[in-house]
């Protein structure tokens, strides 16, 4: 669990070139909006590609994506359940 969330944080930071430290990201960190990481739809697609490469977990429809991409914890949960 801890291992995969750490990997996910690194993926977020490196793939999306986020200017935050891994320590500043928690499971409750929201992906969108100024209070969260401020991601946009292209970032989400990048993340989908990154998650497939890194974890072998596919997210191929918009409904699933909308459900999964709310917080860092929700992505981690989906990865844990589907890898």
């Amino acid at each position, binding site marked *: 669990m801890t291992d995969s969330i750490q990997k996910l944080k690194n993926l977020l930071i490196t793939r999306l070139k986020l200017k935050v430290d891994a320590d500043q990201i928690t499971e409750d960190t929201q992906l969108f909006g100024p209070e969260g990481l401020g991601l946009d739809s292209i970032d989400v*697609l990048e993340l989908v590609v990154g998650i497939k490469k890194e974890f072998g977990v596919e997210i191929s*429809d918009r409904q699933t994506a909308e459900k999964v991409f709310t917080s860092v914890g929700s992505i981690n949960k989906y990865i844990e359940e589907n890898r």
Partner: protein
Amino acid sequence: MSVSLPPVNILPHSYPFVMIDKIVELEKGQRIVCIKNVTINENYFTGHFEENPSMPEILIIEAMAQASGLIVNNNKRTLVYLAGIRDASFKRPVVPGDQIFIRSSIIQALPPLYVFGVTAHVRDEVVSEAQITLNII
């Protein structure tokens, strides 16, 4: 499926911005192989560069993007915008007389956004690679 028609009627682009001359192979929704013949009379060679003409690398990206758009295009005129370029590299200059083979395949689709892995070869040598994201509406 093998297609040899010029894609001019299915691309929303028109002269002088059609960067694809021929579709060699097309599997709709999956992959494509296209050809771009680089001729000395392309207008950009006048200034890029007068003594040593080479195809501007950004136009190679444009050709890659147009080829990729054709994978998704359903014979109706859609609007396609370039939404991202990642890990682009250019191994050597493309010069007049070169025939570029552009191979693109969908890595990820999340409509209206699509990610493609694209390579461009001249005489079996990779001249360029990129991951391209298109917004197709």
